[in-house]
């Protein structure tokens, strides 16, 4: 489509340009040849006319004029005597043209570029006036005319050749420019079908090449985006699967106990055990749903309330919330700070630290120490607990992941704490660095930008 249009437009403009050029050139050549010759003849004729005319005027005798005309022995000279007006050709005085051609009434001399052909000769008629005499002359411009004609032929020939070459180049060039567009189109189609790596490469260094490279970048970005989306989709599915598993387990035991209580004849002790487990499973479910709500509300675009909070305030919050649990297990929380400030959402950052300290407490043996340290742009929570196995460190941020499932469950974990921590830190553009040695302890470092 575009290719045809471009070629057509170019051909038309080339044609116009060539035709105009040729016309101007040929006209110039003509002027240089034919016109020059006829002008020379014209001067001669003017002289002759003046010479003959003055002789005629001197004695007013037409016979003498004829005599002189004859003496000219010019076969191309014709003379008329007129009444003086231009419309009247007048009475023929002398016509001795080679072909006996009668000019009278046949040629409109006012028009330029009128040529007469006799055999292979070309004549340009010219005229001169002396009083009431009209002299006509056929000047032989055959050589000049033929020369002009030959030159014109050469010019047209050259033009046609150049035109053909240019057309060829034009088609090739258009093809070269537009073919990448076609392959770009092909790629776009493939892209729409989800094929990102088409193997079609455009390496030209022009705008099309630029476009193609932009296209490449776009395809890459789309691919990346899609991968991200499917990854997030996969995560969501995994989260849902994990969630339903986490819900099912307490449901199974609760409905099992309920069935027992309802249908079976149980001893008093067994009844109490069943009820106790039902209650604790209910607690587990409610904790789970609480954490889940937290995670979901964080996942949505909840706005942060960022304020300058001193490290001592944050640490005080953490000690207030975690102090009881730590005391129960005789664990000491040691906070160290030097008046650092952090621009964070206080509630959420407290939540982060509480989660980390809570994990540290769960991992620590009784009577251990946990240190919470603030430095320039980071906060770290360090315990001397059991540590995280190296191959599991990257998994612990995933929702529902628990390094030690049964222990975590027993201590009330749902496997969501660190997932919440990660989400909150992401919102703060903060990063979490985990250093852990199995059996020696873990250090969780928050780095703020």
């Amino acid at each position, binding site marked *: 489509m575009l290719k045809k249009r471009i070629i057509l437009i170019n051909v038309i403009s080339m044609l116009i340009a060539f035709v105009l050029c040729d016309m101007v050139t040929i006209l110039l050549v003509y002027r240089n040849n034919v016109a020059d010759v006829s002008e020379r003849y014209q001067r001669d004729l003017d002289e002759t006319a003046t010479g003959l005319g003055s002789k005629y005027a001197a004695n007013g005798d037409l016979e003498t004029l004829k005599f002189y005309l004859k003496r000219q022995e010019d076969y191309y000279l014709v003379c008329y005597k007129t009444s003086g007006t231009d419309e009247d050709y007048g009475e023929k005085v002398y016509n001795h043209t080679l072909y006996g051609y009668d000019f009278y009434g046949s040629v409109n001399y006012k028009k330029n570029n009128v040529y007469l052909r006799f055999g292979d000769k070309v004549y340009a008629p010219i005229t001169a006036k002396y009083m009431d005499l009209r002299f006509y002359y056929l000047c032989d411009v055959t050589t000049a005319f033929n020369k002009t004609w030959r030159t014109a032929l050469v010019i047209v020939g050259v033009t046609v050749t150049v035109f053909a070459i240019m057309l060829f180049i034009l088609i090739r060039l258009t093809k070269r420019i537009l073919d990448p567009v076609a392959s770009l189109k092909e790629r776009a189609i493939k892209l729409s079908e989800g094929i990102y790596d088409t193997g079609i490469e455009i390496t030209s260094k022009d705008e099309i090449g630029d476009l193609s490279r932009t296209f490449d970048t776009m395809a890459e970005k789309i691919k990346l985006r899609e991968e991200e989306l499917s990854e997030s989709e996969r995560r969501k599915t995994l989260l849902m699967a994990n969630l339903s598993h986490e819900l099912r387990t307490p449901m199974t035991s609760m409905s099992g106990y309920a069935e027992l209580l309802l249908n079976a004849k149980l001893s008093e002790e*067994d009844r109490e055990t069943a009820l106790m487990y039902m209650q604790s499973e209910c607690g587990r479910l409610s904790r789970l749903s609480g954490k889940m709500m937290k995670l979901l509300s964080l996942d949505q675009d909840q706005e942060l309330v960022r304020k300058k909070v001193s490290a001592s305030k944050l640490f005080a919050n953490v000690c207030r919330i975690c102090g009881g649990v730590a005391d129960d297990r005789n664990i000491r929380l040691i906070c160290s700070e030097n008046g650092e400030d952090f621009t964070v959402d206080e509630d959420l950052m407290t939540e982060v630290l509480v989660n980390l300290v809570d994990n540290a407490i769960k991992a620590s043996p009784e009577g251990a120490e946990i240190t919470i340290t603030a430095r320039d742009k980071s906060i770290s929570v360090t315990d001397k607990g059991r540590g995280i196995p190296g191959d599991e460190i990257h998994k612990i941020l995933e929702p529902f992941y628990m390094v030690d499932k049964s222990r975590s469950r027993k201590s009330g974990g749902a496997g969501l704490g660190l997932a919440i921590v990660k989400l909150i830190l992401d919102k703060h553009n903060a990063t979490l660095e985990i250093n852990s040695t199995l059996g020696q302890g873990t250090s969780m470092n928050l780095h703020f930008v």
Partner: protein
Amino acid sequence: MRKNRILIVEDDEAIARMIAMNLKVAGYDTRIFLDGLEAYEALPEDNNYDLALLDVMVPGMNGFELMPEVAKYDIPVIYVSARDDLNSKLTGLTGGAEDYITKPFEILELLVRVEKVLVRNHKIDSTIEVAGLVINADEHTVKKNGREISLKPMEFELLLVLVKNKNIAISREKLLSMVWGIDFAGETRTVDVHIGQLRKKLDLYDNIKTVSKLGYRFEDN
């Protein structure tokens, strides 16, 4: 009569105790391990089990890994797992397990499956002694005080179901489907009539209890 002993490896304490309690009510002995590795380490000394209920995802050593060790002692295995994907089921069953139950399960289903596996592996006595009755499941006979009492086939099946699930209340609908089959388009009245016959013929007025709104329960202390 020897009680069947069942090994339970399940990391969720609530579920483990719940299963154990149900099995105890149904007349089985149980031992619970919350950790796969602990179960593995205890097996050489204590392997007198008739059946093992293994959770697949347990800490220490998972159910699939534990399976060959359990099989060494000729203990049939039923997996009880929250993993309900086909792959896990196939891995479990092709690995030699007798059955695969997914969580959440109905406890009655678990009991029935447990019993089926025990019967298939001849771990269960075909004679059941309960409440002064000697019931022989193979011969379809019931003796009370050494005297054989004739029962109609459906009465016998009903007695068997009640006795096997003793101390557990079973609804009339469930009894209908368990004894007469799911396709049986009868009324729950049928169950009442047969219960009446059993009570009369075997003098089980004290043992077969009507549980209001629920159904019947065979009680034996």
